[in-house]
């Protein structure tokens, strides 16, 4: 009933069914050449998922090559489950970011939850114990469309999964802009720690070794999404088939423990998680990387439902599954390890010498494909690129300074902008402390987790101000990397490397492809300059909202190392009497600023400029000052400029305030978003040493204990507000827009 009801190779060709499955005309012809025959139904499905953008990066590959990805401390660059960097003491940090945008738009809770589950598997499949999660989120403006629902459910989904598996979610970011109204972005990042010798790769080496399947049985989840649902390709109706994956974090927790135990056994040869395109991609990639082939008997694959076809088994995206290659004869050791956790591990195939990917079902061969054709030899497209017309127009615009009459009132409004407002509503739902390593919990510039048994800590951040990228993708790309590094440095750590989550619109639109190209170039320049190689990443295309592409949103997830716990620096002001400095000068730069959105409702003009040499220099010196023990607190200036940064610095609830005297135009001084600036505090006795070290720091005032924020511009008091009032507005804004009590 199964394979007979499927289309014959001839029908697939005649009726051009491959188009519906996602293969283009040319791709289909190419497949025929590779196979020297027509592909059958299962093979057509396998090619179409493996050659999809998601698995093959066929349009983005040429761009990704531009990223610097090597350095002496990079132990594993892009290409494996996650990247790996050396952090000394025989330890390494393993990390990657991944998007789950489309599933989250359809089913926000499960979409977000399974996104978290997937990125965790990428990290522990390398042999690392996951130690931290981050998430970078984008939604439309609150209150519009379905935004509040999407936002609440995505956050609940992330919490539901991450909390249960026992990995702390230590930070992230949320930006709200109309551009994301019905296409939210949900990017999750996971960081793991590993001893060098435990490093594991997803390879299927050694002909004769056994391929094992571990974890949850396969169901009909997530099979080929929308393209497939239309035609009546098989006898039973497809429309009721679930294409939404449901996650089981409990199963994942067991899988983590079992896999980390399996890694200690030398019977294990290779391991990879089943992510997008499930069994197909994990198996073919493992073989392709090892230069081997693989034969699998699908009858042996654990199945949740009856009568699953080869096509369904190979394309299912059921969650919480892993593929292992194990030394021949030692399968039982693996079975026992997984059984301890109540999990199934089943031998399903064998590594072969010939490089073909062969599948058997019910006693016959249902697919036979040269394995490299699926992975390495997937097509690559060089898409046409064209400078976006709107960007050219924006570049021509004059600098403008928004008109502000009451700077205190404007500050209050800015603090209530959802993108600036406190994200406590979000991170309070995340277990940020499990594993008892979280030294800096969410709410600071970067999260910091200590590494037990050492005096070291990792700092982690995600950043991407896509408004700047919209105005100028290249400059915006530079800023995204620089801002992430700034946050790492402020927390007292040295930036070591980054993972990128590239989210864009439709790449067949030359202007969108140009955005991709330029932003990747900008990021690469900055990554080179700041010595933060790109060690892993993810691409999500075709993100559009209301028929328009989203703002280019290449999220940067960065990890840094604090070489001593003493270097960990808070972002809040610490003590009354401390001196307040701004490092770096200010120009009138309002393109893409929070103030621009507040006064005009949209973004236009030039993005703030950035000089990466200056950036690198300042970061270097600030870190030096921190390591020398001269800095009490450090915070970068970002959305909302100096005024917002000062306010945030007194929101620790410790009754402190600040008083500052600044020269120049009030609106520029308070709200411009000029880059490469920092707000730091220094004990009076360190004044001299600090000023000698950071020559472009300007002393603007001091920390007080009267719970007031006072800023005088050219001697005139321009802001004079109660800190508690400001704090309440900032803290209450998001609960208020959700109609909840703070």
């Amino acid at each position, binding site marked *: 009933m199964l394979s007979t009801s499927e289309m014959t190779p001839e029908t697939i060709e005649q009726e051009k069914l491959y188009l519906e499955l996602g293969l283009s005309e040319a791709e289909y012809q190419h497949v025929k050449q590779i196979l020297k025959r027509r592909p059958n139904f299962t093979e057509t499905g396998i090619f179409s998922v493996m050659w999809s953008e998601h698995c093959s990066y066929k349009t983005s590959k040429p761009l990704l090559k531009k990223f610097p990805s090597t350095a002496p401390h990079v132990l594993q660059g892009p290409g494996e489950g996650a990247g790996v960097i050396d952090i000394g003491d025989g330890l390494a940090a393993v990390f990657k970011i991944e998007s789950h945008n489309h599933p989250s738009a*359809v*089913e926000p809770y*499960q979409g977000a939850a399974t996104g978290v589950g997937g990125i965790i598997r990428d990290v522990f499949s390398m042999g690392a114990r996951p130690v931290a999660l981050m998430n970078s989120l984008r939604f439309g403006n609150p209150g519009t469309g379905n935004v509040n629902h999407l936002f609440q459910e995505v956050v609940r989904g992330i919490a539901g999964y991450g909390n249960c598996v026992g990995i702390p979610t230590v930070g992230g970011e949320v930006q709200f802009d109309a551009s994301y109204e019905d296409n939210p972005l949900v990017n999750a990042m996971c960081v793991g720690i590993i001893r060098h010798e435990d490093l594991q790769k997803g390879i299927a080496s050694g002909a004769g070794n056994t391929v094992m399947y571990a974890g*949850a049985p396969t*169901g*009909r*989840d997530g099979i080929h999404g929308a393209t497939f649902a239309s035609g009546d390709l098989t006898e039973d109706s497809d429309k*009721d*088939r*679930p294409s*939404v*994956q*449901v996650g*089981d974090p*409990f*199963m994942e927790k067991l899988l983590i423990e079992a896999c980390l135990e399996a890694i200690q056994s030398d019977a294990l040869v290779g391991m990879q998680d089943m992510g997008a395109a499930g069994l197909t991609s994990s198996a073919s990639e493992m073989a392709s990387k090892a230069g081997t082939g693989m034969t699998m008997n699908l009858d042996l694959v654990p199945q*949740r*439902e009856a009568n699953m076809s080869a096509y369904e088994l190979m394309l299912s995206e*059921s*969650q919480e599954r892993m593929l292992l290659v194990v030394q021949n004869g030692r399968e039982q050791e693996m079975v026992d390890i997984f059984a301890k956790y*109540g999990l199934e591990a089943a031998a399903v195939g064998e590594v072969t010498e010939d490089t073909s990917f062969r599948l058997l079902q019910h006693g016959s061969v249902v697919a036979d494909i040269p394995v490299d054709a699926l992975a390495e030899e997937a097509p690559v497209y060089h898409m046409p690129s064209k400078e976006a017309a709107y960007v050219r127009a924006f570049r021509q615009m004059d600098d403008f300074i928004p008109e502000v009459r009451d700077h205190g009132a404007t500050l209050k409004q800015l603090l209530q902008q959802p993108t600036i407002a406190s994200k406590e509503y979000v991170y309070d739902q995340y277990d940020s402390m499990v594993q008892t390593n979280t030294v800096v919990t969410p709410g600071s510039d970067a999260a910091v987790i200590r590494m037990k048994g050492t005096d070291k800590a990792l700092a982690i951040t995600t950043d991407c101000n896509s408004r700047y990228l919209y105005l100028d993708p290249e400059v915006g790309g530079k800023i995204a990397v620089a801002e992430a590094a700034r946050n790492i440095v402020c927390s007292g750590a040295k930036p070591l490397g980054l993972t990128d989550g590239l989210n864009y619109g439709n790449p067949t639109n030359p202007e969108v492809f140009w955005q991709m190209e330029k932003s990747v170039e900008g990021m690469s320049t900055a990554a080179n300059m700041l010595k933060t190689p790109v060690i892993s990443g993810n691409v999500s295309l075709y993100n559009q909202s209301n028929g328009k592409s989203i703002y280019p949103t290449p999220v940067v997830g960065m990890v840094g190392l604090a070489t001593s716990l003493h270097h960990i620096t808070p972002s809040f002001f610490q003590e009354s009497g401390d001196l307040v400095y701004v490092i770096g000068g200010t120009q009138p730069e309002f393109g893409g600023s929070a103030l621009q959105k507040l006064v005009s409702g949209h973004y236009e003009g030039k993005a703030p400029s950035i000089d990466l040499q200056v950036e690198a220099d300042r970061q270097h010196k600030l870190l030096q000052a921190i390591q020398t023990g001269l800095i009490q607190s450090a915070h970068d200036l970002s959305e909302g400029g100096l005024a917002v940064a000062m306010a945030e610095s007194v929101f620790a609830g410790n009754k402190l305030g600040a008083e500052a005297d600044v020269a120049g135009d009030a609106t520029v001084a308070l709200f411009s978003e000029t880059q490469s600036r920092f707000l730091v505090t220094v004990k009076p006795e360190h004044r001299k040493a600090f000023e000698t070290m950071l020559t472009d720091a300007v002393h603007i005032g001091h920390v007080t204990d009267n719970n007031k924020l006072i800023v005088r511009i050219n001697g005139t008091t321009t802001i004079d507000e109660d800190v508690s009032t400001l704090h309440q507005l900032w803290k209450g804004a998001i609960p208020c827009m959700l109609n909840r009590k703070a």
Partner: protein
Amino acid sequence: MKKVTVHVTLKEGILDPQGQTIETSLHSLGFTEVEEVRTGKTIELLLNDQDNVEARVQAMCTKLLANPVIEDYQLHVEEALQS
């Protein structure tokens, strides 16, 4: 007054990890006759009399009470005992 009970269940084929865990636990408690466990939820609504009770509750379901992507639902309407 009407009392409407909405039974929300997971669509066929959708993973029900909760049901599976309960099943395993029942087995280990000796209830080996259990073949399958599926979980669902109920939402009991007490409604002031109004026309089209059923259509209104259908609307509540599609708007809020059930998630059509993964869930099915059934309604059961009865007269509520005045209390």
